[in-house]
């Protein structure tokens, strides 16, 4: 192919097909060779593997992905599986609470940090260090702190307050809040850093104008500055949102889905069916549902962000 391109391409005036091939494949050849890992990642992993997963989610693969095509059967099973429905409803409950509280607390702390305070870098260090830790570490520490007999509950009961109750981690109705405490602990600092960068990016003139007009500081923050930080806000929502959909390690470490199945999440459902449940078709159908969820979050943002330039992503 390259031979033809070289031979006929040299002198040709009109844009012939060999010339086109030459242009496509040989121009910038070192750059293309250097970019091969990226091209392979995009084509094989991000596109290829995703399509593979979607395709095999329509098969009845059990231990190996060799099953035959069964249409939407896996999805019908998925939507009637109690564990999956609990996982999804957990994710929705946890996700909404986590998203709203992370954003609200992140913004509140960023505003406080923006008040020309002393020890700003000390406060920032304290708020952001959990973000550097593994979810496993976070989950295990909070599992210990919330231990009903020896954790906070036990400590306060031993002080004499016998009826004090903080058993969220072992209470099926409260376990999502236990997850929330640990999740916020890890994520709020990061959100604060993003928001603070956004606040610092707002033009000083806006503040002067608001002050001249006699608008109270808190109203300036909420109704003038916040809407101006649209870009940062959208980025934060997309990042926190796609992080929530991926929620896995934290649950494994903190509760391992328990008590019972009351803190199960979709990502864990997929991994369990894939590697220990021996039902690959089911796992892939669940993974496809996760993909659709992320698309619902990311596509509108991608459209707003890149849509104008006519790019697909």
């Amino acid at each position, binding site marked *: 192919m390259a031979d033809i391109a070289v031979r006929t391409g040299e002198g040709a005036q009109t844009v012939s097909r060999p010339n086109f091939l030459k242009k496509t494949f040989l121009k*910038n050849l*070192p*750059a293309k060779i*250097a*970019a091969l*890992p*990226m*091209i392979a*990642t*995009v084509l094989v*992993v*991000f596109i*290829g*593997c*995703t399509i*593979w*997963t979607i395709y095999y989610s329509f098969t009845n693969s059990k231990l190996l*992905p060799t099953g035959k095509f069964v249409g939407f059967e896996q999805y019908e099973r998925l939507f009637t599986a109690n564990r999956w429905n609990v996982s999804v409803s957990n994710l929705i409950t946890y996700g909404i609470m986590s998203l709203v509280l992370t954003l609200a607390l992140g913004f509140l*702390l960023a505003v406080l*940090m923006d*008040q020309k305070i002393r020890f700003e*870098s000390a406060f920032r260090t*304290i*708020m*952001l*260090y*959990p973000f*550097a*830790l*593994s*979810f*496993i*570490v976070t989950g*295990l*520490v*909070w599992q*210990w*702190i919330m231990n009903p007999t*020896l954790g906070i509950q*036990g400590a306060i009961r*031993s002080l004499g307050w016998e009826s004090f109750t903080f058993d969220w981690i072992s209470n099926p109705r409260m376990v999502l809040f236990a997850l929330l405490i640990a999740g916020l602990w890890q994520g*709020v*600092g990061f959100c604060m*850093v993003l928001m603070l960068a956004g606040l610092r990016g707002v033009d000083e003139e806006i503040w002067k104008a608001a002050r001249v007009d*006699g608008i109270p*500081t808190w109203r300036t923050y909420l109704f003038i500055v916040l809407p101006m930080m649209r870009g940062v806000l959208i*980025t934060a929502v*997309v990042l926190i949102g796609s992080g929530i959909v*991926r929620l*896995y390690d934290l649950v494994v470490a903190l509760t391992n889905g328990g008590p019972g199945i009351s803190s199960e999440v979709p*990502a864990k459902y997929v991994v369990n069916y*894939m590697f220990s449940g021996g039902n690959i078709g089911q796992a*892939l159908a669940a993974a496809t549902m*996760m*993909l659709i969820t*992320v698309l619902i979050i*990311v596509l509108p943002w991608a459209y707003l962000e890149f849509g104008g330039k006519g*790019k*697909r*992503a």
Partner: protein
Amino acid sequence: MTMTASMTGSAPVSQANEPRGPRPKPFFTPKKIMIYSTLIFFSLYFLFPLYVMVATSFKTMPEIRFGSIFALPNQINFDSWVRAWSTACTGLTCNGLAPGFWNSVKITVPSTIVSIFIAAINGYALVNWRFKGSELFFAVLIFGSFIPYQVMLYPLVMITRELGIFGKLEAVILIHTIFGMPILTLLFRNYFASLPQELFKAARVDGAGFWRIFFEIMLPMSLPIFVVALILQITGIWNDFLFGAVFAGTHNQPMTVQLNNIVNSAQGTPEYNVNMAATVLTGLVPLIVYFVSGKLFVRGVAAGAVKG
């Protein structure tokens, strides 16, 4: 607003009774008290687990059983640390966390180097050697970073199995390189785009090629972004759980996987002091990176995030 304005505006004169250094503003205004007490409240929330982790790891088991989780340890006692490091049981074997630590080192070092090197070349090619479709590949790459790992997990297991590296270090390194690529490529692309293009053009005119410009001009100039990428990758790969658990195989399990085994699949009565010592040990490497790197860590997480 009138309240706040008068408070901050007329402050320097009114507070004459107690001179506190060069700044004559009153420190204890109601507004300031509100701000600092809220910040301190949240700081306690953020610091409490660190305190509990360290304090518990120094206690003896009777101390834990009969004392309070808030209490300081009676004495600094490193027994639990030694046991967490060398004899705690991680499922089948009882060699402590030490093997996991070295596995994590063996995974993190090459994964960090390979992923950063490839991403640097990607960024360089995307900025200075654009080819047909390069921007589209980049867009899909960034978009791909939002796909949940679980979607690509099984096909990747099959691919690594075909390549004969499943369950070996190479597989984990490959996976970390793949999933680190979007964010790192973005980081390097933005950095190279911010460099003056005249340098590149001058080198081109002088006849330098793709690799020569990369190694002799671009790399020496990109030290700051390399440090940011390094911080991002060391903490990210060290903290990984899923890929280590799936791809590394039982002999190469990273520290996070072994830690989870020590705590969550322990037999018999749980030893909370050993558990917490193991947890501190696992968190130590990213914490050191975090405290040493300071503002660069912030820059790393923000650079990756702000223009995603």
